[in-house]
C-alpha cells in the first residue's frame, strides 16, 4: 500500500464537490517557512474542511487515512480519526490491521504508539496477546525501540500476559547480550510480575544467570548494573554474598576489560567488604608498571588503576579516590 497510489484527486471528485477546501494559514512571514507538495496541499485543505465542520463520515475517515500516509506525525489528524472511529463505531480490530504497515515504516512515531494504546485500552484484555505479538514484531526490527518497550510494559501491567515474558527477555539476550533494554525489561519482570514472587524469590536464579553473562562479556555495563539491582534495599546481602565478590575476582584474574569488575570491587570495599590476599594479588597484578607505588589501601590502588585504564573518566575516578576514608592505611 503505497502513499502515491492511494492519492485521491479530491478537487475532481464529485463526491467531494459539496465541500469547500480551507487553505493553510502559515501566518504573515513564517519563521520556519515550509514548502508543500501539491497533493499534500490538496489533502490538507480538504482535511481542514471536514475537521472544521466536525464531519464524522466514512469519507472523512478515508481522508484521514490519506493525510496520515502523507504525514504520519500529524497529531491533529490522528485525534480527528479517533473521534470518527468513535462516532461511526468502527471495529477496532480492523483499525489495528490498518496500522500494521504504517507502524513498520514509522517505528519511532509517537502518534502511532499513542493511537495503538488508545485502541488496546478500548479492546481490553482481549488485546493483550495481539499487542505482545505486535511489539515482539516491532522489536525484531529494532530491539531497542523505546516506544515499543514502553508500550509492552503498559500492556503487561494493564492487560496482562506475563507468562512468557522472562523467556522472551532471555531470547533477546541470547541474540544480543549487550541489549540494555532487554536487561531493563528483565528487571521489570522480576520486580513487577505477579507470577514470580518478586526480587527475593528470584534472586538466586537471577544472580546465577547474570554472573554467567558477566563472565561471557566482562566489559558489558548492563549485567553489572543488573547484578547490583538484584540486591536493591539489601546492601548487606550484596556485600556478604560470595558470588558477587568472586565474579569480580574471576574477571580480574582473566584477560578482559576490568573496569566494571574494579568499580564493583571498589563499591564493595566502600560498603565494608573485607578483601583477602587473593583480591590484593589480583588487583596488584593489574597495576601499570609506570604508575604510583602500591598503596596499602586496596581501594586507593583500584582508583589509581581505573584512572589509568579508563582515561576518559579520569576525573570521576580521581574523585572516587578523594572520597575514600584516609584513616584506613599507614
Amino acid at each position, binding site marked *: 500500500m503505497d502513499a502515491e497510489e492511494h492519492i485521491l484527486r479530491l478537487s475532481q471528485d464529485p463526491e467531494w464537490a459539496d465541500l469547500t477546501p480551507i487553505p493553510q494559514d502559515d501566518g504573515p512571514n513564517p519563521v*520556519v517557512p*515550509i514548502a508543500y507538495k501539491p497533493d499534500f496541499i490538496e489533502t490538507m485543505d480538504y482535511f481542514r474542511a471536514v475537521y472544521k465542520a466536525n464531519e464524522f463520515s466514512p469519507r472523512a475517515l478515508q481522508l484521514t487515512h490519506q493525510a496520515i500516509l502523507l504525514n504520519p506525525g500529524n497529531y491533529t489528524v490522528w485525534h480527528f480519526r479517533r473521534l470518527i472511529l468513535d462516532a461511526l463505531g468502527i471495529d477496532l480490530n480492523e483499525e489495528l490491521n490498518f496500522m500494521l504497515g504504517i507502524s513498520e515504516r514509522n517505528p519511532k512515531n509517537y502518534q502511532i504508539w499513542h493511537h495503538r494504546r488508545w485502541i488496546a485500552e478500548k479492546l481490553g484484555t482481549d488485546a493483550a496477546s495481539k499487542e505482545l505479538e505486535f511489539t515482539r514484531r516491532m522489536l525484531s526490527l529494532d530491539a531497542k525501540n523505546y516506544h515499543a518497550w514502553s508500550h509492552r510494559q503498559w500492556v503487561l501491567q494493564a492487560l496482562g500476559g506475563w507468562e512468557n515474558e522472562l523467556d522472551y527477555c532471555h531470547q533477546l539476550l541470547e541474540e544480543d547480550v549487550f541489549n540494555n533494554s532487554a536487561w531493563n525489561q528483565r528487571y521489570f519482570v522480576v520486580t513487577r510480575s505477579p507470577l514470580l514472587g518478586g526480587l527475593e524469590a528470584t534472586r538466586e536464579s537471577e544472580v546465577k544467570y547474570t554472573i554467567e553473562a558477566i563472565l561471557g562479556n566482562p566489559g558489558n555495563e548492563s549485567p553489572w548494573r543488573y547484578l547490583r539491582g538484584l540486591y536493591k534495599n539489601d546492601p548487606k546481602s550484596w556485600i556478604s554474598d560470595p558470588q558477587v565478590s568472586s565474579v569480580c575476582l574471576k574477571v580480574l584474574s582473566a584477560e578482559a576489560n576490568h573496569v566494571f569488575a574494579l568499580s564493583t570491587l571498589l563499591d564493595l570495599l566502600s560498603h565494608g567488604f573485607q578483601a583477602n590476599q587473593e583480591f590484593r594479588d589480583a588487583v596488584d597484578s593489574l597495576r601499570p608498571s609506570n604508575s604510583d607505588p602500591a598503596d596499602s589501601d586496596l581501594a586507593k590502588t583500584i582508583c589509581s588503576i581505573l584512572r589509568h585504564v579508563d582515561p576518559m573518566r579520569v576525573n570521576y575516578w580521581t574523585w572516587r579516590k578523594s572520597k575514600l576514608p584516609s584513616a584506613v592505611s599507614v
Partner: protein
Amino acid sequence: MGELVVDKHVKYILSVEKRKDSFESVVLEHLRMNGAYWGLATLDLLGKLDALDSNEVIEWIMKCQHESGGFAGNIGHDPHMLYTLSAVQVLALFDKLNVLDADKVANYISGLQNEDGSFSGDEWGEVDSRFSYLAICCLSILHCLDKINMEKAVNYIASCKNVDGGFGCTPGGESHAGQIFCCVGALAITGSLHHVDKDLLGWWLCERQVKSGGLNGRPEKLPDVCYSWWVLSSLIMIDRVHWINKDKLVKFILNCQDTENGGISDRPEDAVDVYHTYFGVAGLSLLEYPGLKAIDPAHALPVDVVNRIFFQK
C-alpha cells in the same frame, strides 16, 4: 576540525525554507512551534536574535493558541503540552510574556495533571515523565507553579527512577538520557534534587561518553549531538559535569558542523537539521565555548532571559 562557524549557522537558520525537500517540510509542518524555538533559541545563543522581526513571530504564535489556553504546533492544529512550552519559551526570548494571559495557559497545563501526579501531553491522555517536565518548566516561567499539586508531581517523577540512578518515561521504563534531562530538570526547578542519587547518576551519565568523545543516550547506542544537551545539562544540574572529558566532546560537536553551508548534524558526515543545530550550539554553550551566550540547563533558555524572568534583571 576548526571553530564554530557562527555566521554560517545564522545563515542556515534564516534560510531553512530554501531546502524544499518535500518530505522534511511536510513532517515539520505540524511541529513548526518546536522548529521556531530551536531556530530562535540558536540565534539568541549566537547573539543574532535581532536578525528577525519579533512582531511577526509573536503574531503567528498567538494565532496558534486555543480556547483552552494551550498552544498548537501550527495554526489550525490541536493544542499539546509540547508546543505550549515552546510557545512560552519563544515569547520569553523576545521578552514578550506580557502578551499572554498566564492564568489561562496555566489552567490548561494544570488541567492535564492526573490523580497520581503525572501529566498527560494533551486531552488524549498519553502519560510520560517528559510531560511532567514540560508542565513544570512552563509553569515556572509563568510564575504559576502553585496551580498544580507539586508534591504529587514530584513523587511521580521520583517513581520513574531506576536502580542505575537514571529515569525512564514511566515507572520501570529504561533509563534514557532524554528522560533523565526531563526528570532532573523538573526536580531542579521544584527544588527537589534530593530525590536524585547524584553520584550514581553522575557515573551513569559520564559512562555515556564514547571513544570519539561524543555522548550516547543509553548503553551500547551510537553517539549523537543531541545527547550533548541531554547528558550535559543533567550533569550540570547535579554538579558533576567535570566527570566527562569536555575537550573531546567539543571536538565531536564541531566535527558535526557543515562548515560550508552551516547547520549541525547528529554525527559527523550526516545531513544537518535545525534540531541538531540547536542542541549542538546549546551543548557548546554549556561547555562554555567562547562567544556564545550562557544557557540555563533547567529551563533551556539563555541565562539572561532566565534572569529577566526570575529577577527582573
